[in-house]
């Protein structure tokens, strides 16, 4: 008997075989895999008591109520508020990713002063006292030089106490140059002024919940138009009650796909179609005779103009829609169930529209008597809760001073702000007429059409102060950044301007302590005003912003603080007899054919047309996408870091392109390398480009992904309102 090498080999094999018949390897594998999940550097959410706090989302004009779920002091989730009159528990993808904006890496974490060239991204932090002192020094110098109107301010809106505090400071300082980010609401407000004859500004409202037929002129009803969550809910309700929705658009958007019919008109002929429909309605006597007879003026003239210029044959030729379809659509619109309404404002409504188109569409609503009626289009009175916004002494301080953008001047009497005109006004002057610019809740260096020109104009302004919470494109061009708390860290009233059928004021509340060394912009304005002293200082009698807000809200404050919103539940629009102003107190039809600007670019050099493609997944406003929402962008819009252009296969092949391949897209403003996606759902001759990508600022999650639509498309000024109504540009595309 000899024990040799083979014996030990056998022992080993036996041990191995035996082990395989025990639970050891399987249990050990399982345990090791769990062990790897518990490595100390693996992030694990903090455990603790969960509770909810209520607030309002400010990431778009929608004004949704939110419930913020917290574990201890950390926000872990944002949900829709079920009791809120706007969103009734619903919430969008951007809204739920709010915590990423709060805790994400793109925040400006302290006051910062530029230490390199503009856009170079070199900053040094400074104390709040030093930062405010620097702004004050410059303001005092402007005052001493008697150049107070050389101060300008850009806000996202003029609604609510914070924009009004900025406006008040500017006015008392002596500058009328308070401007706001353009949107379709500017056009609607101008239409209400013109056609309803009211001098005060009214909000447009749509009673979508009670309508049976919706005729949408390019509005992205479920793609961010109006108050987005409300619109998605309204759209679902239309399906349930079998209301009809007809979409007029050049491509099969999500809204078009969910509609009952798509009318792909030639781009830019929407107003023609609206008046063509009006023509049929009048010729077939389908209009509301009670309304046109007793409550309107100019109807016979309007009728003459329309029947003469917009008969279905002419309109069919112009729009490319067959005559019988125009007639059928007009009949449906005029006779649909109990109520029908027509809406406009392209895509998300983030740009203004032509007065021609908006007035034509509004005339359609008026013709069928659906102004201020159930299921129709409403002019909603303001809650008018900021008494100090209308003080005469504030107006007197800027009496006789001209706005740089000429809004409200005899040329553009119905416009309150024309920010789109600012870059060209600056560029055409040798020295910038604006020496100091405040930018709050706005990102004009990204959202205005013709980015290069905008940045060139900003470059001429000697001193720019950004109040942005994030390192956006405009902050990147600023000299000083005074970061605001983000909406989850601050109090602010949010009057909703989202086409709601009643006034709603929301309240954002500080659901967490400010995470960084930021300051409420309202408090900064108060500090600046008090620092300036004199007439300006006296105009700000409040201790701090919260004091101002509480006193302004007066009786409404308690309700706002408790429920998060105030609304007039029983709101009803004024009846026809008292709804209109003007000389006759009647709705004013217009028989003027208003001019429309031509699309930029020469047809020979640029045979195609580039239009924007807007989606809920891409935030195209001053708020950039969050890491989460960027992940939801499909590869038909963004492939890797390359933008994808949608083009009809027929046009694509004519241009020598292949589906999925690289190409170069060129417009008169610039060019960009893209990928091509063939899509049958877009009209031949057109290309659609996702809007909201191609950021040059923000952090790694957003910067450098895709290309910016606004960088390739220039502004188109409406000759009547002065607003930028750009909806596309001529372009060409070639393979590489």
């Amino acid at each position, binding site marked *: 008997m000899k024990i040799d090498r083979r014996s030990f080999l056998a022992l080993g094999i036996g041990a191995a075989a035996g082990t395989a018949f025990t639970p050891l390897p399987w249990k050990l594998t399982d345990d090791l895999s769990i*062990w790897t999940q518990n490595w100390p550097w693996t992030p694990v959410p903090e455990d603790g008591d969960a509770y909810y706090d209520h607030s309002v989302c400010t990431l778009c004009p929608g004004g949704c109520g939110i419930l913020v779920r917290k574990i201890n002091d950390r926000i872990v989730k944002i949900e829709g508020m079920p009791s809120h009159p706007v969103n009734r528990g619903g919430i969008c993808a951007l809204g739920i990713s709010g915590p990423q904006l709060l805790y994400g890496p793109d925040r400006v974490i302290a006051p910062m002063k530029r230490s390199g060239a503009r856009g170079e991204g070199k900053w040094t932090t400074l104390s709040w006292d030093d930062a405010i002192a620097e702004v004050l020094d410059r303001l005092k110098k402007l005052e001493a030089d008697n150049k107070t109107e050389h101060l300008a301010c850009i806000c996202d809106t003029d609604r609510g106490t914070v924009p009004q505090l900025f406006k008040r400071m500017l006015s008392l300082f002596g500058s009328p140059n308070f401007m706001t980010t353009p949107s379709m609401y500017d056009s609607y407000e101008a239409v209400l002024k013109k056609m309803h004859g009211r001098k005060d500004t009214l909000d447009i409202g749509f009673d979508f919940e009670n309508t049976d037929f919706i005729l949408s002129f390019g509005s992205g009803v479920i793609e961010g138009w109006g108050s987005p969550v409300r619109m998605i809910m309204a759209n679902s309700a239309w399906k349930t009650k079998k209301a009809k929705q007809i979409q007029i658009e050049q491509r099969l958007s999500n809204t078009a796909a969910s509609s009952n019919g798509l009318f792909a008109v030639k781009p830019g002929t929407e107003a023609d179609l609206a008046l063509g429909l009006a023509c049929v309605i009048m010729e077939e006597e389908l209009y509301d005779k009670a309304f046109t007879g007793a409550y309107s003026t100019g109807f016979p003239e309007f009728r003459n103009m329309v029947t003469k210029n917009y008969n279905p044959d002419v309109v069919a030729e112009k729009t490319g829609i067959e005559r019988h379809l125009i007639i059928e659509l007009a009949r449906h619109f005029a006779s649909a169930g109990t109520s029908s309404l027509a809406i406009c404002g392209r895509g998300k409504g983030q740009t203004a529209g032509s007065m021609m188109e908006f007035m034509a569409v509004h005339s359609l609503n008026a013709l069928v008597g659906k102004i201020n009626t159930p299921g129709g289009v409403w002019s909603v009175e303001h809650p008018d809760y900021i008494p100090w916004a209308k003080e005469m002494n504030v107006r007197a301080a800027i009496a006789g001073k001209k706005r740089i953008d000429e809004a409200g001047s005899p040329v553009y009497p119905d416009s309150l702000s024309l920010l789109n005109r600012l870059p060209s006004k600056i560029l055409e002057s040798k020295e910038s007429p604006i020496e100091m610019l405040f930018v709050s809740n706005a990102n004009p260096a990204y959202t205005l059409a013709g980015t290069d020109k905008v940045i060139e104009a900003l470059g001429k302004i000697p001193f720019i102060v950004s109040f942005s919470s994030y390192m956006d494109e405009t902050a990147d061009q600023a000299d000083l950044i005074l970061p605001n708390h983000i909406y989850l860290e601050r109090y602010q009233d949010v009057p909703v301007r989202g086409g709601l059928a009643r006034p709603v004021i929301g309240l954002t509340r500080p659901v967490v302590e400010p995470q960084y060394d930021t300051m409420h912009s309202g408090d900064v304005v108060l500090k600046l005003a008090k620092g300036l002293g004199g007439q300006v200082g006296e105009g700000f009698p409040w201790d701090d912003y919260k004091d101002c807000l509480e006193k302004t809200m007066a009786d409404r404050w308690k309700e706002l603080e408790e429920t998060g919103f105030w609304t007039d539940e029983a709101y009803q629009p004024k009846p026809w007899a008292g709804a209109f102003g003007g000389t006759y107190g009647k709705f004013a039809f217009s028989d003027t054919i208003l001019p429309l600007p031509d699309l930029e670019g020469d047809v020979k050099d640029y045979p195609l047309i580039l239009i924007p493609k807007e989606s809920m997944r891409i935030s195209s406003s001053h708020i950039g996408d969050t890491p989460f929402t960027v992940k939801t962008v499909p590869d038909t819009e963004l492939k890797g870091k390359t933008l994808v252009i949608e083009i009809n296969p027929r046009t694509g092949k004519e241009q020598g392109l292949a589906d999925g391949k690289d190409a170069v897209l060129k417009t008169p403003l610039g060019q960009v390398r893209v990928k091509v996606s063939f899509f049958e759902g877009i009209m031949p001759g057109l290309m659609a480009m996702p809007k909201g990508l191609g950021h040059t600022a923000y952090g790694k999650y957003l910067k450098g992904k895709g290309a910016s639509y606004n960088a390739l498309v220039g502004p188109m000024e409406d000759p009547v309102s002065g607003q930028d109504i750009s909806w596309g540009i001529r372009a060409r595309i070639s393979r590489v």
Partner: protein
Amino acid sequence: MTTSDHKAKGDAPDKAPKGREGSSFGIIVSFFLIGFGLSMAVGWIAFPKLLYSEKQQPFDFNHAIHMDLVDEGCESCHLFREDGTYAGVPTLDQCSGCHEDAQSDSPDEEIFVNEYVANQQEVPWLIYSKQPDCVFFSHAVHVKTAEMECAECHGDIGTSESLKVYRENRITGYSQDIWGANIAGLKKNTWDRMKMDDCGSCHLERMGSKGPCFQCHK
């Protein structure tokens, strides 16, 4: 040396080598069996003993006594919050309502009152059913909606008079109750194990599908 060589030389090579080979084979088999047996012993007996360390709870707890005193069974103390979330192990606040002072002469209650209630310190209970953080589990859905009994997953703890020893897996840090007392992972009762497959088999049986990954791993 080859076989043909042996034959050629007229040797009788068959017997002696056969015996040698037989004994060698026996030794190999023996060693194989020794190895097999040892590893079986290690795998089935030593490994489970080594894998778990025994830990004592801060003090003992008698579920049975408490069950007699309450009206709503387990939910009297292991309650659901107003928003539907499950509160888990009762907090000091809940207990100190009755145990501000000792109610009996139990040495365990004495520890609770003197060391925890008096110092306003939460009891660091070792939780037998604690699952990894990557798992989302809603008690409300199972207890309220599906009307399952607590015992179906946790066993009949309500009648126990003392807490069992907490065996902590030295590698994962979780309780032995998750894998189950049987090291082979076999179970007789639904509450013997709490692994993903156990959730899955119940879901498959009652709902027709194990459900998508993200149902629990959000």
